[in-house]
């Protein structure tokens, strides 16, 4: 029984990272109706820069680097829009190109090494369950962040503008809501949150240049499990995915645990009606 409890708690702690990655995914999907494939790459850049610089300055530099990359993606998005591109899959493809380029840059500059740092050496023991202190800090931080974001979206005028822009772009633009500004802001938020996720991964499990695509896909999986509409659902989706992964690692095998995020994505996509409205009446 204690084993199950340990798996669940540990899974929830590691799932918090997926929850954090799910937030930019759901924000992006709701406001721009696309996916920023580069979110995982922002995480990698942030981790790599922070690992090199070190200390508190490293944290800031990592976040700054991730934000700069996201700003670049926002410029590409704006340029595509200015050129008359309204195809959401093209935005996604461009972010995919950026993700590939960033991962390759990291490989070239830092090589194949893994980026990992340990802030704590001894695990905490709570009621017989051993916990990694960094995991607890990650969880608390992410819970706080998602809670704050939820309040921002639901109870401030900025949040109301975001929801309006998401629900009806033309209508929002007619009501003088800066739709394009909100979309650019969403890309930047993706950089910030992706970068933060990268820093937290750096101090817990670590990552290397192959991580970005997996991180992006995990974030997306977490975002869609309970519906992509809100960051709060994404948070619980991330926890569910982490717990499923920990249980799979404990009771099945490492192979199944590695497949959990992808199986989640496949399962949800094949059984849900996700994005079906785009097909029913969606004309280009």
């Amino acid at each position, binding site marked *: 029984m204690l084993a199950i409890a340990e798996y669940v708690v540990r899974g929830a702690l590691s799932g918090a990272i997926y929850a954090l990655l799910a937030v930019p995914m759901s924000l992006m999907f709701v406001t721009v109706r696309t996916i920023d494939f580069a979110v995982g790459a922002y995480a990698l850049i942030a981790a790599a820069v922070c690992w090199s610089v070190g200390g508190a300055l490293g944290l800031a530099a990592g976040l700054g680097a991730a934000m700069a990359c996201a700003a670049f993606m926002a410029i590409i998005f704006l340029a595509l829009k200015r050129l008359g591109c309204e195809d959401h899959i093209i935005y*996604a493809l461009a972010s*995919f190109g950026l993700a*590939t*380029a960033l991962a390759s840059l990291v490989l070239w500059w830092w090589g194949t090494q893994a980026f990992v740092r340990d802030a704590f050496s001894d695990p905490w023991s709570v009621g017989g369950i051993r916990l990694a202190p960094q995991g607890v800090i990650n969880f608390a931080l992410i819970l706080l962040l998602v809670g704050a974001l939820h309040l921002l979206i639901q109870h401030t005028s900025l949040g109301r503008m975001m929801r309006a822009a998401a629900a009806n772009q033309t209508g929002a633009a007619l009501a003088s809501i800066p739709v394009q500004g909100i979309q650019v802001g969403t890309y930047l938020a993706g950089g910030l949150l992706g970068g933060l996720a990268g820093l937290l991964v750096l101090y817990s499990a670590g990552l290397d240049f192959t991580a970005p695509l997996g991180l992006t*896909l995990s974030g997306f999986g977490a975002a869609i499990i309970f519906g992509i509409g809100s960051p709060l659902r994404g948070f619980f989706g991330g926890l569910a995915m982490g717990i499923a992964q920990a249980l799979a690692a404990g009771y099945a095998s490492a192979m199944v645990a590695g*497949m959990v995020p992808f199986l989640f994505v*496949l399962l949800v*996509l094949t059984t849900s009606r996700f994005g079906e409205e785009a097909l029913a009446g969606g004309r280009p």
Partner: protein
Amino acid sequence: MSFPGQRYLGPRPNTLIIAVCVLVALPVVLTRPVWTDSAVVLGVYALLGLSVGISYGQAGILTMSQGAFAAIGGYAAAILTTRFGWPPYADLLVAMALPAALAYGVARLVTRLSPLATALATLALGSVIEILIRNADALTGGYIGLAGIPSVGAINTPAGYACLAWGMIVVTVFLYENLMCSAYGRALNVLRVDQARARADGIDVPALMSAGFAVSAAVAGAAGWLYAHYISFLSPESLDTHISISALLMAVIGGAGYILGPIVGTLLFDGLTRLMPAAELQGFFYGAALIIILLAARTGILGLLAGLARRLRRPDATPAPRAANLSPQESLP
């Protein structure tokens, strides 16, 4: 002026172009061993690129699992020939049928979704296949891989494989062009541009999209089959997600909607990056090229060339609507 086979190739300009190019270039390439080896590997990539062209350029499914389909084809060939003693060539059928069946099944479940969701499903599918291959030690040899895959019949020199690879490409282009000239090809183009219209025209959208994806997976499987027999060794790293991504990027850069676009993209980019010093930066060049091409010409290099040619021919005319199978997204309203 007439030439032999004009009746069949005349209305098939792409097949004619690729056949002539291969016939002219191959004798030159075969004079140097390094070029011959590159020609085979490029042939495998070009086949993968063609499979992306069928899937993304024609059926509108942004696929990120072609490497995994190729791996299935390659492993099917490797296992059937090394373990069960199947004669080479016979395994080609299985190497194409297995990925096609899998692709059809998955596509039937996900093609009713938005194109973005379908793309993610293919990425997830590719990742799952990769993990399964890595861990199915008894069947695939796990991380160690499978060695000693026999050569294809009498073909056992790099020159022979180069001829086989590019012969396969000419045949694939011919069949692909045939498909796009048929009612099925036209239906694929309609549904890529406007699914509601396709339904109104009586097209069974999910079935046709899935069939298109299955054909694309079969071509990828054939690429894997060729790769396995040529290299004679297969490991999980041989045909992984990295290959899927490269194939997708090269196809989009060359012009996924044009039949020869993926081949142009493959030759140009793989050829160029082979000349570059740092192999680690390959992804950077691909990514940067993709972004530039999306900004400069969303229809790829061939789209850009076609646009230029049209402008040269009729400087002041507005672009006329063209047949959908020749010109993809640019003819959209």
